[in-house]
């Protein structure tokens, strides 16, 4: 007779099985609706969506605006995440709660808040108007909304990434001849980069998927300043329009293209990040 399996081993098998079931369920939850959408449209209609000039303009504009928003989110988020990870100060938990506020606020209200802020009746709005800077229905408004709704991801992911860097490593590098800047460049950044890239990817994903705030501040986007492109809309708003006008058959092909494009960008960024690490390791000084 086979020896009885110890209770702990049985427990761990059940735990593992539960984890696998949870992971498969999660995968299904994420993938099935997307598959339903992606397989809804006949292949030929996808080509039609690609040929739609308005959709192409909206996608290009969204990539530009979201790129700027991610850059702004990282520019603000990475140093803030670093401070939150490395410094203790009074009111830190309040600051951490404030950082997550953009995730909590319904995004329609973000748009409303920006409309109020830039109203010529407010002090801020009146200054902006006097300076001759247009805001509503411009790329500025789009980038502002996108940055607002995505910056929390950049801050939080950076904070977690910097927290994984053991301060002992930095101290050791200092005693081995590295200045604070060199220690940051050679120790902190390479260790934290994966988390920072994750923050950037999340921020980008959040930017391109934003609808509510953009419906309020940039339903239609007019060219302004260096962005002298065609009159367009953010892609999410464009898709919303297609749906309200043409229903599912009208929106599904463009939505499919947009999802596939977004997924391809996600995968590319991850591959580039991995490639970057390999290249970086190759540059190590070896005998």
């Amino acid at each position: 007779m086979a020896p009885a399996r110890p209770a702990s081993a049985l427990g761990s098998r059940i735990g593992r099985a539960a984890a696998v079931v949870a992971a498969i369920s999660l995968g299904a939850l994420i993938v099935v609706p997307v598959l339903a959408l992606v397989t809804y449209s006949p292949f030929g209609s996808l080509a039609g969506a690609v040929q739609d000039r308005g959709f192409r303009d909206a996608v290009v504009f969204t990539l530009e605006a979201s790129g700027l928003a991610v850059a702004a989110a990282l520019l603000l988020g990475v140093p803030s995440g670093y401070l939150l990870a490395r410094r203790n100060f009074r009111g830190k938990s309040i600051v951490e709660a404030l950082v997550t506020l953009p995730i909590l606020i319904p995004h329609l209200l973000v748009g409303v808040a920006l409309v109020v802020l830039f109203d010529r009746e407010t002090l801020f709005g009146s200054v902006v108007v006097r300076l001759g800077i247009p805001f509503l229905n411009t790329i500025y408004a789009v980038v502002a909304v996108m940055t607002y709704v995505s910056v929390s991801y950049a801050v939080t992911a950076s904070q977690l990434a910097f927290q994984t860097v053991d301060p002992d490593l930095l101290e050791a590098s200092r005693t081995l001849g590295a200045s604070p800047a060199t220690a940051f460049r050679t120790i902190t950044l390479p260790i934290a980069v994966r988390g920072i890239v994750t923050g950037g990817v999340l921020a980008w994903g959040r930017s391109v998927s934003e609808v509510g705030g953009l419906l309020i501040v940039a339903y239609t986007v007019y060219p302004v300043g260096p962005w002298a492109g065609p009159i367009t809309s953010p892609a999410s708003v464009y898709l919303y329009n297609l749906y309200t006008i043409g229903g599912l058959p009208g929106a599904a092909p463009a939505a499919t293209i947009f999802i596939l494009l977004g997924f391809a960008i996600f995968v590319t960024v991850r591959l580039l990040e991995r490639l970057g690490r390999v290249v970086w390791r190759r540059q190590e000084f070896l005998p």
Partner: protein
Amino acid sequence: MTSWSLSGLSSRVDGFTLGPIDLRLDTGGAVAVIGRSGVGKTTLLRTIAGLLPPTAGRIERDGEDLTRVPPERRRLGYIPQSLALFPHRSVAGNVGYPLERRTTAPDPAELRALLDRFSLAHLAGRPTSRLSGGERQRVAIARALAAAPSLLLWDEPLSALDPTARSSLAELLGGVQRDEGIPLVVVTHDPEVAFALADRLLVLDAGRMAFVGPTTQLVDGELTAFLARFIGYENVIGRDELRPHAATALDAWLLERAGPGGLAISAEAVGLVDDASPGFVGRVRQLSPRPDGVDLRVEVEGRTVVARYRPLAGAVTYPRSGSPVRLQVDEKRIRRLAPSVGAA
């Protein structure tokens, strides 16, 4: 010939004050810093390394004031207890790190020589997460030496290593110390490490220097209660501990034989005797096996005494936990202790 000196060095961290510390270190000299947990041993190393700003005092190397010089310009080899190997770099990447900092075109031959010297050449490309404890220690030492240090600072070397790896690494460290002659400050809980690597002891107590003297003090000099515990005496009884209890026969007997700081008796000097012999009667509380017998924790008149029991031919029964025994102390092997005031 390099000479480091610390004069009146103090620092503060999280409300704890270290110092003032006065110490001189010349080429080939090595100081073992010992003391209980939290007395400031690591704080001392970090202050010398420039990782903690001193609140007072001076750090000098060959007469040059380094007190406010940043760590990267002190030419140190600091090995923290965690070893702090860089997880995103290979073995060679770790050892080569200080070489990259010293020059824009580091010499691969120098790196190769270091890897060879510490038997790391075959591991050069391996990530540090896939190294054994001994290999990790060797990488940390090689990396510290790659910085061409004028002082080595070492926090708890050989901790968490198995006995075989410990002794081979201790031998290696001893060799490095002899060959390089780089002054060394080593923090340790281990008398073996202190004895193998250092020629002087610095005992810290609550952030202050409680004792500085040659390591030979441990063998033939006067011992304080702390030093007696440090080198492994199982029964260390301070004189103050005896006074309130001197009413018992055992404490009165011990008090009669105690030095000004109390007395230390190794477990080996306390044996079991039969009921007919004179001795102190107690009850066994705990047994711990040793290579040459069993250590018994025996409660005698409210005091715990550690005795060594060696089963001889014909006497093969071990005492059991809870059983009564009669103890006898070999008077000739009692070590009288010096007072702790002004010493450890």
